[in-house]
């Protein structure tokens, strides 16, 4: 029993980490009122103290547990920047006498020190993480972590390189096998800044990973999906180097800590990032709705929103002299197959009404700019119909291409037209403009589109929930594939395709054009129709038939990521719909 006035106290280890001075030791005092550390001229009070049972100390002093419990201590003092070997003095105020101990700071790089501390860790760790949010203990936890491997028994995990979603989050995926439910937290942290970006275990959606399931066939129970995907919203993720210095720290319930250094993220442009994200799930997987809603959806939203704003360098070439004051501007984006221009011009050339129409082709595909412009020049000499070609150095997507052309269009009425749409009869353009002018409160007029075999392709859009897409509303084309019977009548509909869409230029501008947040062109037409409707305009489908050689301009075969782009666009579209947009059916 120590004499009155001197409380025995000893420092086992002291080290300066990023968040302050950590001191581990023991003191024969049940209650500590305050803790102060002096290091030369610097003084500081502890901001954290955790007590735990030290059997070795108890044995030495013959103390029974329960008599003077919790002899050990861990304190942290927010004193920064002390070099190793600095002399420090620790002073506890207890309800009895003060206790003091002196020590020299260890070098955290010395493994001796870490090993010494690690020997105590089974006692310290659980006490620490029980009492404090581990996020506040990162420097120490990191020091105490063991690289993940087979040292953790059945528990294993792996985090793939993270994708920065613009500057406000990270999308992380990987797998985790934890048959005994040992995991408490799986932190994602940056070793350069020391920031904890989030706890994956509270964010993730679990996904199937057949390869992992196969490797752990004995340990995983059926129905447990080892994969995970998690979007962590957090700022500054595109700061220099953040994604190059990520590590994952698994904190287990028993206090053990496993660490994995994450490989630097590949440098990806926005589209490649989107493609990468889309590869992380399958359309048919469980929890598709949650994955879209909480992870993939917001992540792609962020990637696309934060992409470097386009400043396309527009080039305009006018072939022939455009009509002086056109009433109508027809806008045709070209992507991939520019030879459709040849086919359209061959038909437009003998339509007298086209002489009064401003025709603008937009090359939205830098890969075809040179041959498309050359063809445009040749075709101009042949067909002699005046038209303009806008080209630029990037791919803006369907919405962007139309928006660029709409800004320079002179017509009072815009007709957005796909390059694979071919009129059935001359005079189609003024016929559509006339419908727009005469139908009551018409804001947008689409039209009847036919397949090349004469069957119906489009006579207006209708939203319907798709069960296999987590109940998201998709646009269906009622009557598609059926024999077309001409009615000559326009009908009011909820939406029309932009494959052929007639709209007042003024309204187009009021609506801010087609929404460029949809990727690669999809749903922006329906979106625009709902936005126009919200402003009180009506949407009609006219019966001015046109052929639409649908999907000839894009090759979809075997391109599953494009299907998933559609799924993303569908989700994004659903977020923007008015509440009553989907009629039950």
């Amino acid at each position, binding site marked *: 029993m120590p004499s009155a006035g001197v409380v025995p106290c000893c420092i086992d280890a002291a080290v300066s980490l990023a968040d302050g001075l950590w001191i581990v030791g023991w003191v024969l005092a049940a209650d500590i009122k305050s803790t102060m550390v002096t290091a030369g001229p610097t003084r500081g009070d502890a901001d954290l103290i955790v007590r735990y049972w030290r059997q070795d100390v108890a044995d030495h002093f013959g103390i029974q547990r329960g008599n003077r419990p919790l002899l050990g201590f861990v304190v942290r003092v927010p004193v920064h920047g002390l070099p190793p070997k600095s002399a420090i003095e620790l002073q506890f105020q207890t309800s009895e006498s003060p206790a003091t101990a002196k020590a020299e700071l260890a070098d955290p790089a010395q493994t001796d020190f870490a090993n010494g501390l690690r020997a105590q860790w089974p006692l310290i760790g659980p006490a620490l993480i029980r009492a404090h949010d581990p996020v506040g203990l990162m420097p120490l936890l990191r020091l105490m972590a063991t690289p993940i491997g087979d040292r953790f028994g059945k528990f294993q995990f792996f985090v793939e390189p993270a994708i920065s979603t613009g500057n406000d989050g990270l999308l992380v995926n990987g797998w985790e096998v934890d048959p005994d439910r040992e995991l408490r937290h799986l932190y994602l942290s940056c070793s350069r800044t020391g920031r904890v970006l989030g706890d994956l275990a509270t964010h993730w959606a679990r996904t199937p990973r057949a390869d992992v399931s196969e490797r752990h066939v004995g340990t995983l129970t059926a129905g447990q999906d080892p994969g995970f995907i998690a979007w962590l919203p957090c700022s500054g993720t595109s700061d220099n180097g953040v994604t190059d210095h990520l590590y994952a720290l698994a904190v287990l319930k028993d206090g053990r800590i496993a660490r994995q250094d994450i490989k630097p993220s590949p440098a990806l442009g926005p589209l490649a990032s989107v493609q990468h994200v889309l590869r992380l799930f399958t359309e048919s997987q469980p929890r598709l709705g949650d994955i879209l809603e909480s992870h993939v959806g917001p992540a792609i939203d962020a990637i696309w929103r934060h992409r470097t704003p386009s400043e396309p360098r527009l080039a305009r070439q006018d072939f022939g002299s455009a009509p002086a004051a056109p009433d109508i501007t027809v806008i045709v984006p070209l992507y991939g197959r520019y030879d459709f221009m*040849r*086919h359209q011009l*061959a038909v437009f*050339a003998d339509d007298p009404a086209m002489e009064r129409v401003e025709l603008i082709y937009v090359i939205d595909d830098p890969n075809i700019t040179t041959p498309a412009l050359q063809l445009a020049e040749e075709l101009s000499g*042949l067909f002699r119909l005046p038209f303009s070609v806008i080209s630029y150095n990037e791919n803006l997507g369907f919405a962007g291409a139309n928006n660029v052309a709409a800004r320079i269009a002179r017509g009072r009425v815009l007709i957005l037209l796909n390059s694979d749409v*071919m009129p059935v009869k001359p005079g189609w353009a003024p016929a559509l403009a006339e419908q727009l002018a005469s139908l009551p409160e018409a804001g947008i007029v689409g039209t009847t589109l036919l397949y090349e*075999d004469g069957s119906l392709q489009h006579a207006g859009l209708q939203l319907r929930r798709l069960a296999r897409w987590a109940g998201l509303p998709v646009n269906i084309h009622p009557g598609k594939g059926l024999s077309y019977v001409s009615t000559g009548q326009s009908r009011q509909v909820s939406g029309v395709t932009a494959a052929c869409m007639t709209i007042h230029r003024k309204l187009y501008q009021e609506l801010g054009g087609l929404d460029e947040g949809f990727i690669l062109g999809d749903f922006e037409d329906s979106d625009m129709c709902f936005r126009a409707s919200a402003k009180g305009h009506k949407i009609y489908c006219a019966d001015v038939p046109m*052929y639409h050689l649908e999907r000839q301009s894009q090759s979809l075969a075997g391109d599953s990521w494009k299907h998933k782009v559609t799924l993303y666009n569908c989700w994004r579209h659903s977020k923007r719909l008015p509440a009553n947009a989907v009629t039950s059916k």
Partner: protein
Amino acid sequence: MKRKVLVVAHGHPDFSKGGAEIAAYTLFQELNRRDDCEAWLLAANGIAGLQHTGTPFSARPREREMLFAGGTDYFLFSANNLSHLTQDFAELLRHIQPDVVHFHHYAVVGIEMLRVVRNTLPNAVIMLTLHEFLAICNRNGQMLKSNGSLCRNAEADPAECHACMPGRSPQDYFLRRQYIRSFFALVDQFVAPSQFLKERYVTWGLPSDRISVVENGQPSRAADIAAVDVDSARGHRFAFFGQITPYKGVDVLLQAFSQLSKAEQKRARLDIFGGGQDMFEKDFQERIEQQLESAHRNVRYRGRYVPEDFGRLVASTDWVIVPSVWWENSPLVIQEARQYGRPVICGDIGGMAEKVRHEIDGLHFQAGSASALAETMQRCLHEPDLWVRLQRGIEPPPSIEATAEELTRLYARSHHRA
């Protein structure tokens, strides 16, 4: 004031002796013989070594005969070099100032030429002679399906074309038809050498009144036409003249001959004149060779011939057989046989059936059927008066003079309308 006619062809007979090239050239020559015409010829040629740099044109060493560096794809017949058309050809038109531009083809020259004429000379009459079904059918214009059956899809329905030739999508066939039609719409008057061809194109979408049926007349060869000895009782000598291709049915003919009885084969004779089999698959070549080898010794393969030799060769035969398994349009060999007074035995379909009148100046058999042909040949061998009767029914084929006369009338009529 002479009418200026520019004849445009897809080849020049100096380099390529196809029926259409010869027809175009014959017309060009005949128009120049007339005193109301001044004809020019522009014939495409694909021989790169003949071309000069910086111009698509070169000349033959005769007045007003030019060559044009053509080249098109074989789907749309779109010119590989549009500026040769929109600039050089347009310049040529401005230079010649023809009243009529008469196209004998659009392949090789480029279908866009039709529009260049309309752009450059709005008042010129545009004529187009249709030589086969190329605009309708991308399978070499044969209208013969890939499984060998006859195609009746004259609408060029894209779904049916795709089913026959799946290499291209229905949308491609739709665009092909739309593209070709857009240029054909600029033509003032079409000329079809047979009523059958005309009907096919009417079904395809051309207005009936814009297609005139005018046969490609033959230059008269009065000196060649040795008097046919109609009195001698003949009828056992059969002959085939033409290209040996899978469409011409030589295999059907050889099979038919083998189906004759031993005694009949001994009495009959079959001469095969022609070549070209080496242009086709080995399978086909081998089949023909095998058939010739195993045939009766009275079947003789006589090899290639040149058109000038036809009269001499046909003199030693009685019947000319046209066993084609496709429609045919207006086969030259039928006109030649008529010119030399030989009755023709041909399939009962398309242009050949139209040009040979059954039981009047020739005989029809069920096209493609060897046994039907064999039966017909048996009639020839056994019916004593048949040959003489049919021989007497033969009328001479239209002459080039008559063709030119009729076309000139069409030029005038179309000009009036234009």
